[in-house]
C-alpha cells in the first residue's frame, strides 16, 4: 500500500505540477490565467492514443507530433482568446474566452473521440514493472517529464538571452517593450511552450489517467491547486505543491476513501486561500485606489 501511495501519488503529482507550470508559463507572459491548461493535458493523452494506438504510428514520431499539436494549440489560444481581450485585462474577460475555447475543444473531443476512457499504449516495450513495482514506466515517465521540464525551463530562463527576455516581459511588460523587446512574439512563444508542456503532461501521464475527455476538468482544477498554493508564477512552488497534492490525494484515497479525499483537497484549497490569498510562497500585492 505504501508503495502504491508513494509511486502513484508522486506520478499524479508530477502531472499536476506540469499542468501548474503550464498555467505559470502563460501567466508570466500575459498576466492571464488560461483555462486551456487542463485542455492541453487532456489532449496530450487523447492525441497520443489516437496517433500511436489507433493509427499505429511509431511512438517517438507520435510523441513529437503530439507536442507539435500542443504548440499549435498554444498559438491558437494566444491569437484567438488572449490577444483580443488583453487591452481590458481588468475586466477579466480572458476567463470566459479561454474557458469557451477549452470547452469547444473538449466537446469536439467528446464527439469525435468518444466519452469513454480509452487505454493508452505502453510506450517503452520492456516490462519495467516486473523488476520492481517502483520502476513502472507509467509512474516514472511523468516524473521524468517533470524533471526535464524544470531543468529545461531553468536553462532557458537563466542561461539564454531569449529566456531573459521572457523574464523581462513577466517582470514588467511596459518596460520590456520600451527596451524594444518584441512582446507579442515572446508572448506567442510562451504560449507555444505552454502548449508543449501541457501536452507533455497529458502524454506521459496517460498510461495512468487514460485517454479520456473528462480529464480536462480534473486537470484544470487539480493543476491549478499547486499554482494557487505555491504562489502564481512560481514553478518551484508548482512542483512542490503538485507533488504534495498528489501524495495527499492518494493517501487520503487509501486511508479515508475517495469521497473524503476529494472533499479534503477542496477544503484545504479553500482554507489556505482564505488565510493566504497570495499562496503559501507568494508575496502580497498592494492595492491601488
Amino acid at each position, binding site marked *: 500500500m505504501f508503495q502504491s501511495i508513494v509511486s502513484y501519488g508522486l506520478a499524479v503529482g508530477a502531472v499536476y505540477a506540469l499542468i501548474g507550470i503550464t498555467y505559470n508559463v502563460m501567466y508570466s507572459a500575459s498576466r492571464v*490565467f488560461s483555462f486551456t491548461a487542463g485542455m492541453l493535458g487532456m489532449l496530450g493523452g487523447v492525441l497520443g492514443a489516437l496517433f500511436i494506438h489507433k493509427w499505429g504510428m511509431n511512438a517517438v514520431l507520435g510523441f513529437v507530433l503530439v507536442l507539435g499539436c500542443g504548440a499549435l494549440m498554444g498559438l491558437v489560444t494566444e491569437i*484567438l*482568446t488572449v490577444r*483580443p*481581450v488583453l487591452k481590458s485585462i481588468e*475586466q*477579466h*474577460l480572458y*476567463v*470566459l*474566452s479561454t*474557458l*469557451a*475555447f477549452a*470547452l*469547444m475543444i473538449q*466537446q*469536439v473531443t467528446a*464527439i469525435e473521440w468518444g466519452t469513454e476512457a480509452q487505454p493508452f499504449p505502453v510506450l517503452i516495450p520492456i516490462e519495467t514493472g516486473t523488476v520492481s513495482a517502483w520502476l513502472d514506466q507509467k509512474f516514472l515517465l511523468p516524473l521524468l517529464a517533470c524533471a526535464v521540464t524544470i531543468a529545461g525551463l531553468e536553462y532557458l530562463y537563466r542561461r539564454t538571452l531569449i529566456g531573459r527576455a521572457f523574464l523581462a516581459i513577466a517582470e514588467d511588460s511596459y518596460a520590456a517593450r520600451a527596451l524594444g523587446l518584441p512582446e507579442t512574439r515572446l508572448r506567442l512563444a510562451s504560449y507555444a511552450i505552454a502548449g508543449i508542456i501541457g501536452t507533455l503532461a497529458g502524454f506521459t501521464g496517460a498510461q495512468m489517467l487514460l485517454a479520456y475527455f473528462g480529464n480536462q*476538468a*480534473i486537470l*484544470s*482544477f487539480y493543476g*491549478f*491547486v499547486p499554482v*494557487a498554493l505555491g504562489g502564481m508564477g512560481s514553478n518551484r512552488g508548482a512542483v512542490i505543491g503538485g507533488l504534495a497534492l498528489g501524495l495527499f490525494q492518494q493517501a487520503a484515497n487509501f486511508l479515508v*476513501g*475517495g*469521497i473524503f479525499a*476529494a*472533499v479534503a*483537497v*477542496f477544503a484545504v*484549497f*479553500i482554507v489556505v*486561500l*482564505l488565510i493566504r*490569498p497570495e499562496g503559501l510562497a507568494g508575496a502580497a500585492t*498592494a*492595492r491601488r*485606489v
Partner: protein
Amino acid sequence: MTDTAAPISQPKAPAGWLGRLEGSAWWIVLGLAGLLLPLLEDSYIGVIAQRAYIYWVLSAGLNLVVGYAGQIAIGWVSMLTLGAYTTAALAAGRVGPEWHPFLALAAGGVMGAVAGVVVGLPALRLRTFYFAMTTLGFSTIVTQVALAWKDVTGGGVGTPGPVFPWPFDPGWGFYYFCFFLAALATWMTANIGASRYGRALVAIRDAEVAAEASGVSKARLLILVFMLAGALGGVAGGLFASLQSYITPDAFTFEMSVLFFIAILIGGRGSILGPALATIILTALPEFAAPLVQWSTFLYATLLLVIVLVIPGGIADLLDFRNRRPLEKHREIVTRPELLARVLDRHSEKNTLSMTGIELHFGGVRAIDGLDLEVRSGEVHGLIGPNGSGKTTALNVLSGYYKPHAGEARLNGAVLPFLEAHTRADRRIARTFQTPRIVGGASVLDNVMIGGTIFGQATFSETLLSLPRHRRDEAHLREAALLALATVGLEQLAAVRADRLQHSELRFMEIARALMLRPAFLMLDEPAAGLSAEEIRRLGALIVAISRSGTGVLLIEHHADLIFDICDRVTVLNLGKKLAAGTPAEIRSHREVVSAYLGA
C-alpha cells in the same frame, strides 16, 4: 404573473438601467404564454417549458451573482446537483425516514444556500480567476462525491427523484408548480436588482472603491447574494430531480453551467428580462433542431467566445435604443447651491478630522513622511503640492484604503481605525476620486443613489419581498438623489447612462453622490481637473456653500486660483512632508512654497 410585473412597472426614474428593456409588457406576455401553454395539450412542449422554468429558477439567482455583482461563478451547476440529490435522497428515505417531498425540496434549498456561502467565501478575498476556479472545482467535486457515495446517491446507478403529491403531481400540476416558482424567483430577484442592494452589487462590479466609500460592505452583501443564489439553485435541483424522475451524476454535466452562464451574458449584465428570455431560448433551441443536440454544448461555447470578443455588453446593450439618442451638444452645468440647505443636515456641532504623525512608504519610497493635518467643520482646507507629494495618498489614508506605518487619525478625538474603508460612510466622511469611479452602464440617478446606501432601512429579506419599508427607502433615496443632482446642476441628465457624460459632468456627479451621505466631511480629489474656467468658478461657489452649511471640506487641487479663492486654510506638501501651513495669504507669500511649487 402580474405579481412579477408589479415591482418592475413601479413608477421609477424614466429610464433606469433596469427599466431600459423591462417594460411590464414583456412580462405580461411571458406570463400569459406560461399560463395558457397547457391548452396546447402537448406534453413534449410542456416538459421543455418545465425545464426552462427550472433552469431559470437557478439562473435568476445566478444572475445576481454574475450579471449584477460580476462574479464569474462558472460552476453553478453544483447547486443544482446538491439540491437534486438532497431532495431525492431525503424524499426516498435514503437518509433516515422518508421526508415529505415539499420538506425535502425545502431542505434542498437550504443545502444550496449553505453551499452557496461555502463557494462564495473565496470571492470575498480572491481574484477573479481564483473564484472561477473554485466554483469549477466545487462542481467537479460534487459530481465525484455523487459517484462515490453510493449509500445516499446510488452512485453511477442513480436514485429516483421525488414525486410531488396532488395538485402538483407530474404533468400539468407539476408544470404550474415550476411556473409558479419561476415567477416567484423572477419577482424576488427583480426586487433585489432594483433596490439599493442591486445598485450596490453593480457598484461592487464596476467601481468597487466607490462602493466601499459609499458604505457598501462587500463581504456582507455578497454572502447574502450567494446564499440566495445557492438556495434558488438548490430548489431548482429538487424540481429537476422530480422532472427527470431518475437522476444519475451524468445528468449534471459541467456544460449545463455554461448554458446558465451564457444565458446571463447574452441577456445582458444587470438585466432580468434579458437573461430570462435567453434561458428560455437556449433551453428550447436544441429541442427544435434535432441534429444540433449533439453539438449544442459546442455551440454554446462558441456563442460564449463570440459574445466575449464581439459584444461584451450582451444583447441588452444592442437593444438599448434609448441611450443611442444623441444628447444635447452644448450642455452647461448650472449649479444651484441654494438647494444645499435641503440636501445637507445643518450641522451646528463642531467636528474635527485630524491626522498626526502619519508615515507611509511603498517599498523604499516615502509617500508620506510625518504629516499632521486637521480639517474642521465649516471650513475649506486646501491640500496642495507638486505631483507625487503625497496628497492623494494622505486622502486614501483618511478614507481607509491604506494603513500607514506610523501615526493616527482621529474623528472628534476618537481614534479612526485605518483600513475598513466601508465604515467611513457611517461616520459621514464622503469623498470623490481623482479619476471618477462610476458605474458606466447605470443611469446617473442610480449612480447617485448608491451614495445614500447607508440610509436604507429595509433588510435584505424585506427587499426580497418588496415590503413597505423597502418601498419607502426607494422613494426617499430617489427623492434625495434628484435633489442632489439638481444641486450640482445635472438633473436633466438623471436618466442618461453615466458613461455618456462628459468628464466634467462626471466630476459633479461624484460630488452629488458624496452629498447623498449628508457628509460631515467631504474630501475632494482634484475636482476642478478638466473643467472650464466658468465651471471652476461654479464649483468653487458650490464648495464654499457646502462648507458654510457646516461640512468640513478637504480639497486637493492644482488650480492655485481656486485654492486661494475659497480655502480658509492651506497645507502644502512636498515629498511627503509638510512644507507650510496657514491662511492663503500666508502661503502665497511663503518663500519656499513659491520656489518649490507656485513659481515666481
